[in-house]
Each structure stands twice: as C-alpha cells, then as structure tokens.
C-alpha cells in the first residue's frame, strides 16, 4: 500500500504546499511508522438493493439506507458492495503514545494513518471496480455513513451485516464512534451504465461543518 505524502500534507493543512524540512522529515518517519504498526483488514460483501415504496434497503437484516443522498447515489444500482476496513488498534495506541511524547509528531502520524486507511479503501475500491467489470457492471464511488444525510446510526447495522466485529475486529461504541479509530465503512453501487465520475465532494457534505480535513480551494 502506498501512503500518499500529498494527502498527509493536505490533512495537516498544508494544502498543496510542501512543508518545511523538519515537517517533511517527520512525515517520512511517520509514514514508515504507520506502515509498521498498521494491520489492515477488510471485509466486503455484495447485497441486493431493495426498494420498498419510499424505503431503500439491502437484503440483510435491519439494513435500511435512509436519506436523500444515498438514494441519489444508488439510484441506478441494483446491487451494492458494502465495505468495512480497519488499520487495527495498534496504530491508535501508537498515536496515543506519541502524543504524550511529542504532540507535533502525533498530529503528523494521525494524518499519515488517515491517509493510510484511505489508501487501503482505494485499493479495495479498485478491486471492486475490476470485479464489477468482469460482470459487465460499473461501480459508483464509495459513499460512507455521515456523508450527506446518510445517518451514522446505520453503522452498527452495516458492521453486523458483515460480521465485522468478529471477522476484522471493527466495532462501534454506543455513540457510534468506530473502534479502532482508523476505520471506514462504505457503500459502492453497481449498475449497468457508467457511473458519474464526480466524486462526493467536501462541498456537498454537511454545509457549515468545520471539518479540519475539508478540501480547500487551493
């Protein structure tokens, strides 16, 4: 897996700029450390999409997909692939440890780990796309709970449908925080026609949100 330095810089707020020498060196060191401490594991499964009047759900118990955004996202899909991926708990502990010693480095490592889980999801997504191709299907981009108006409350149902706690150790807390921290769940639609190439963009996600990772205009 390749962790993109450019992404790490973006999460740190540098935008497209190169950082100073010290920070660049720290980014290198953190990327190496993240690779050493991560245990990427994933599970994904293809589900039928069921449209029940106004309801959108998939053929797993209690897995309703609520909200307008996911409805639009899957509007042309009959099937969807649901992914759960995690880097494992060791990376969380490492970040906590470093943050006690050197907060600046911990911030960089946190960004590097975020870039790593995203890179891992990119890999899973490409394999889903190529599998879809074999079946003459096109894949949409991946769409995660919390994007647009797809509520986070779907998270435990996704994890249960994939048996994620048991298979890859991915759980949520009562307040729907995913544990381990560096984890992603996502839904990819499969459809007969080319999917729109427009990625879900930060601008469309929860207007007004002060997200530290919001992709800026620079």
């Amino acid at each position, binding site marked *: 897996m390749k962790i993109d330095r450019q992404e790490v810089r973006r999460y740190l707020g540098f935008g497209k700029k190169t950082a100073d020498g010290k920070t660049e060196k720290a980014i290198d060191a953190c990327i190496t450390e993240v690779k050493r401490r991560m245990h990427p594991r994933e599970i994904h*499964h293809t589900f039928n999409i069921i449209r029940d009047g106004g309801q959108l759900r998939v053929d*797993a*118990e209690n897995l309703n997909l609520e909200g307008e955004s996911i409805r639009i996202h899957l509007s042309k899909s009959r099937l969807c692939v649901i992914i759960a991926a995690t880097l494992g708990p060791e990376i969380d502990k490492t970040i906590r440890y470093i943050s006690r010693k050197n907060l600046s480095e911990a911030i960089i490592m946190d960004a590097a780990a975020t870039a790593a889980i995203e890179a891992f999801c990119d890999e899973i997504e490409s394999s889903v796309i190529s599998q879809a191709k074999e079946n003459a299907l096109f894949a949409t981009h991946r769409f995660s709970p919390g994007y647009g108006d797809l509520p*986070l409350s779907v998270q435990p149902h996704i994890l249960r*449908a994939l048996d994620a706690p*048991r298979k890859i150790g991915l759980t949520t807390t009562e307040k729907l925080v995913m*544990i381990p921290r560096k984890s992603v769940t996502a839904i990819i639609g499969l459809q007969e026609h080319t999917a729109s190439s427009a990625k879900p963009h930060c601008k469309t996600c929860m207007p007004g949100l*002060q997200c530290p990772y919001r992709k800026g205009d620079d």
Partner: protein
Amino acid sequence: MIDLNIFELKRKIGKEFIFFDGAMGTMLQKSGLPSGGLPEEYNFTHPEIIAEIHRQYSEAGADIITTNTFGANEIKLEDSVYSVEDVIGQAVALAKNSSGGKLVALDIGPIGQLIEPIGDLSFERAYQIFKRQVLAGAQAGADVILIETVSDLHEMKAAIFAARENSNLPVFATMTFQDDGRTLTGTDPETMAHVIGRLGVAALGVNCSLGPSELLPIVASMSKATDVPIMVQPNAGLPRIIDGMTSFGISAQDFAEKTASLAKAGASVLGGCCGSTPEFIIKVIEMTADLSPVSIEAIKSTVVCSSTKTVHIGGDPVLIGERINPTGKKFLKEALKRGSFDQIVTEAILQREAGASILDVNVGIREIDEELAMVKAIREIQDVLDTPIQIDSTKPAVLEAALRIINGKPIINSVSGEEKSLDSILPLAKKYGACILGLTLDENGIPKTAEERLKVAGKIIRRALDEGIPKEDILIDCLVLTASAQQKEVSETIKAITLIKNEYGVKTILGISNVSFGLPERNLLNGTFLAMALTAGLDAPIVDPLCRNIQNVVKTFRVLAGKDENAADYLNSFSDQPKTDAVSPQASKKTLGEIIVDGQKGIVKDATLEMLKTMDAMEIVNEHLIPALDFVGEQYEKRKLFLPQLIRSAETVKSSFEILHEHISRDGKPRLNKGGIILATVNGDVHDIGKNIVKTLLQNYGFEILDLGKNVSPQTIVDEALKNDIKLVGLSALMTTTVDAMAETIKLLHLNHPSCRTFVGGAVLSPELAKQIEADYYGKDARAAVSIAQSFFKQALT
C-alpha cells in the same frame, strides 16, 4: 459410550479427551435460516431446528453441547423482544432436552464493543454484562461455561471474573488468533496462556481463527506456558467466499487428522468452529480413539505480562522502574493532589525508553483516595504503554482494585512474613493470578542476618505454596538497609540473595536506592551496590532507570557476566550516540525567540538557563516566550505556518517553561498561574488530539490545566470543577453523536456550578451549535481558546 457427568468431567479433564460439538452458525445456514440477524432469536422462532442440531452433535459423540447463545448479551439483544434471561433460559432448556443427557455449556461470545482504552466500555460495565449472562445460565441449569471467540484479553478477564464470582461452573476460555499469530487486539498465545492460566479455568485455548493446521504453532506455544488443559475448536480450514457464501476448505477427514496433530501437541479438549458439522466431530472422535492426551508440562518460568507482552524474569537482569512514587517527589505529590496524571504517564514513558521492563506504580499519599488514584494511574499507563506493572501499595483494597483492571499479569508489591500481611495478600495473588514480591521481614522487623532473612523467606514461600500460588510466581526481596546507618548489614543483603536462591530456587527482587540514603553522590553507591547484588544473583533490581550510572552498571555487568554475547549490545550502545541538535556554535547564537519559532526543543533548555543568568523568569516569559508564541500564532492564522509547526513551537515553549517553573519554585515563589481551566473530551467521545493541542497552547500562555482526559462523564466534570474551584471549563467533541453529551455537561454545570463558564470546540461545532447547547464561548481552534481564556480571566480580575 457413557455420558459424562460433571464429576466425571472434572476427573477426566486433561487426562482423557473431552469432546465439544461443532459449529452452530454453519448448521443454521445449512438449515436455510438467513444470516445477519440475531441467531439467538431462532431459539424461539425455530426451536425445532436448534434442537435438531443439538441432537445431531449429541449423536455424533460430543460430550458437551453448546447453547445457541453466542450473542445473548444485553447490548446485542437491545432491540430484541427477548431479554438475556429469556434467551438463555430457552436455549439451555433446548440443549438439555434435545441432547440426551449430555453436559450443556452456556455459550458466551464477545460483547461486540471494546473495553477501554481501545474502546469506551468500562471494565466494570463489561463485567456486569457478562454477570447477567452467567447468572441466567446457572439459573437455567447449564453445566459449564464456554467463553469463546474473544479477541481482547481484558474482555476475557472480565468474563472469567463474572463466571467465577457468580457461579461454581467450570469455565472453558478460548480466544481467536489471526494469521499473524496474535488476536485482533494484539495478544499472543504465550501471554494469553500465562494470564488466563492463572485464573482458575478448567481449560483454555483457541477457537475459530484459522484451520487446524494453522493452529499448531499456537497450541505449541500455549502448552509451553501453562499446565492448564488446552482446548481447540478450529475452523474447517480457511474461509473462502464463493458466490457470496462463505465456505471452508477442508474435509471432515482432513480436519480430524489435523486435529489429532493438535492433540499430539498438547490439546485435550477438542471440538469444531465455523464450517464444522456433526460429521467432523465423529471423525475427530474416531481419529483420536487410539491416542491419549500428552501430559503437557509447561516450562516453569517467572513471568509478568501486559496484554501484548510477556517478560521473563531470570537470566538477563530485568529492570523495574521505581520513579512512579510520590515519596520524596514534590511534583508528583502536587500533581496527584490536583488529580493530574500527566506526570505519571511521562515518568512511565521515560522509564520504558530508558530500559525498564516493568513499572512499579505507587500513588500512596495521605491526602487522596489511593484506590481511585491507583486505578486511574494504571488506566492511563495502559492507555499508552505495553509495559507490565508492579502494583505498589500497603492497602489490600487498593491492590484488589488494581488487580481487577490490570490487563495482564502483574506483581503485587508486597507481602511480608507478618501474619496479617500473609492472610490478606496471598488470597488476592491466588485469585487474580499475580506474582508476589515477598519482603523478608516479619512482626520483629527486618532480621539482621542473612540466615534469619532466609527463614522469613521460607515462611512466605511455604504459605504461598499452601495458598496454591506456584513457586515461579514468588519473588523475594531481601531488603537493604542504609549504608549510612547500618553499614555492617549491607553485606547481609547480598549474602541473603545467594542463600535464598540456592535454598528455594525462587527469583529475587531488590530495591537498590535505599542503600545510599543519607550519603552524598548516591548514584555512585547505588551503582556499585547494584553490581554486587547482580553478581550475587539478583534477577530484578528496582531502580531509577534514567540514572546514567545504573544504566552503565547494567550494560557492563551484562558484558562481564556473559549475558551480552560478544558484547554486541555494549558496542552498539557506544557506536550510535544520539546526535541531537545539542548546543552547536550557531545554535547558541540564536535568540530564545528564534529557537521557539524554529521549534528546536533540543536546545531550548540550555538557552533558557543561559538567559536566567541575567534575567528574571517573569521577564523571560513576558518579553520572549509570549511574543514568540504570538508571532507563530499570527503566522499560523495567515496560513504561513501550519499545525505541526505551531505545535512544535508550543512544545518548545513548554520545555522552556519547565525550566522556569523549576527555577521559580527553587526561589520559593508560587508557580506561574494565570488561571485554572478544566479540559475534557465529553462522554462517549474518544478523540483527544484536538483537546491536547488546546491544552498545550493554553499551558504555553501560563494557564494551569486540569486535563480530565477523554470519555469523561458530566458528573465527573462538575465534581472536579467544584472540588478544584475552577471557573472555566473547555469541552471537546468531534462527533455529531457526542454533542448531546456536551449539552448535558453544560446543563449540569449551570445547575450545580452557576459561576462556572464553558467554552466548546471540535470538528462538528459551529458558533450556532455552541449557542444552541448554551455554551458560553465557542473556540474555532486552539488559538481562539487562548483568547477566550485571556479575556475571561482579565474580566474576572476587574
């Protein structure tokens, strides 16, 4: 075949093979029931199918039939119409009625949420969840308890405590390992066997995970570590997904052959997990008909463990770090009184990095609740480190509270030869499977001669063995008196080490530093005394691992005693002396301000000390530190500098502040304090980097921060604010789902502490949302928090 009753089971276990059944999930799938829901509800909706599965396994020859209750806990059943008691009652009845008199195991799987510090579930809550299942199972008439597919050692401990404390049923405990040989939370089989093997379980082992061939090294590793019977329930090979259906690779015949190999490696309780069927159990019974369990004899080794690491004592000296102890350390005392654990964690990290393999933890000061402080300290250390712990307290209640929440196998410091001590401490060590440190003193004090100390050691060892504590879990501390007061007796300690080792073959511990008390250049004396003790056979010295002299003695001793082969470590330690950015000629020309802007933590202390020669501490703060910080902050706002750089500068200021604080307190003046502030990440939220950034910056500007950590309950925040008379509280939340907890905290503060003000921050917050939840201030970032605090305390003054 005669059915096994519970007495027979207890007699046979480990001596003859015991057979569990195979998979439930696989059989449900084969019966055409959909997956993804709550399989526990099938006990009600499809009882005939569940009964049929039990009947088939019973006929296949399984001795123990497992109930369909894997997820029957109150968290997973939250949305179900059935309660934990309903499900377990029904499932046990089904198993009993359909298995023709076989023993019935109450099946308990993981909760599905993770315990702190990985997750946010408290250990006590996990215990209560399991307790409910255990009580229901015992009530319903289950014969044994099977705790399985657990990944987290801490969760396993909670489940075992719940089972042992709320029932008399034999406990079988298995965990799930991944292809890297560890559980999903990082526990290796050796550590699991050492920790769980001491908790009074009937059998321990591995289930699910992988196929039987892949489990061989795991079983081998466990059988070297424990004499407790080993259980295996492998999957039917590695899972493969074909057309969206999970299937498993190997045949029943193949499975049985491989399981027989596991039996030869030490497993004696056998069964199957995912993909296995009654046919698999029939074959396993056939295949092992001519075998008997190998008598496994574990290597008797003295070990202590964290959840992911086992430290062996004996052979190479093992350093126990002594620095987490408020005795004689004013800064730790003050911190404990304030309720701040940052310094304790810092001490833990420093000692670990300096080579300590075990950390002694002592928080005993009169002014605080030692039990609460001990639990908090251990939690904080476990949050960031995997170094095993030695619990240091004179109070049994404190020790017990610590023993419950330690994730691993600790040492109890200490028990002595006094009756009162033996009676109260030994049962704790036995129950919680801890090592003990036995002090060679009794009602008559510390004996003068080595021979008398040997006698006391003998008494402690005998009593511990009688209690059922194995010899390898006993460590003896021969105690050293100060050379300044009792010079003649120093050599008695050295003599006693050799005597006790020769006579009893136990490992020895010794607190070194006491020897030099009352004399100058204590490190010199400590170092020489350490060399003498190590030569006499001391296994684990309790020392200050940060002390250069101690490090050098250990390094050189290892070469001279032949422990450091070819002096490799020794050579290594001198070849790569760290090249820090320590005072280079150019660096020394930089002003303090420039050093801060460049974030050069390595040289800021020297620069501060240099400046103190000509300048007052307050002047340095106001004329140099704050302006440099302001400059960096402005650059950050103009997006000329970025977060890592801002924080690097902030940490550089922090280092400078430490020097100034020391200087000021040496002059007997009060600490710089522009106002006390509580910071916390709210209940249910586990993100704390943002809060830590705010904290560092506020500290830079001279505010005294009481950091309550993450996942903090509203009540704790209110209590701490009232107790410490704090008027400004900063709250952080990163999730939309935890803003509620923020609102609740603010409400509770307004109600109980009306003069207190709050500021809030975090990714999901906006000025509007802050207003909505009635926060007094909104901080968009750490710089804003500084402005809020500055104007708040300015107003408070006027």
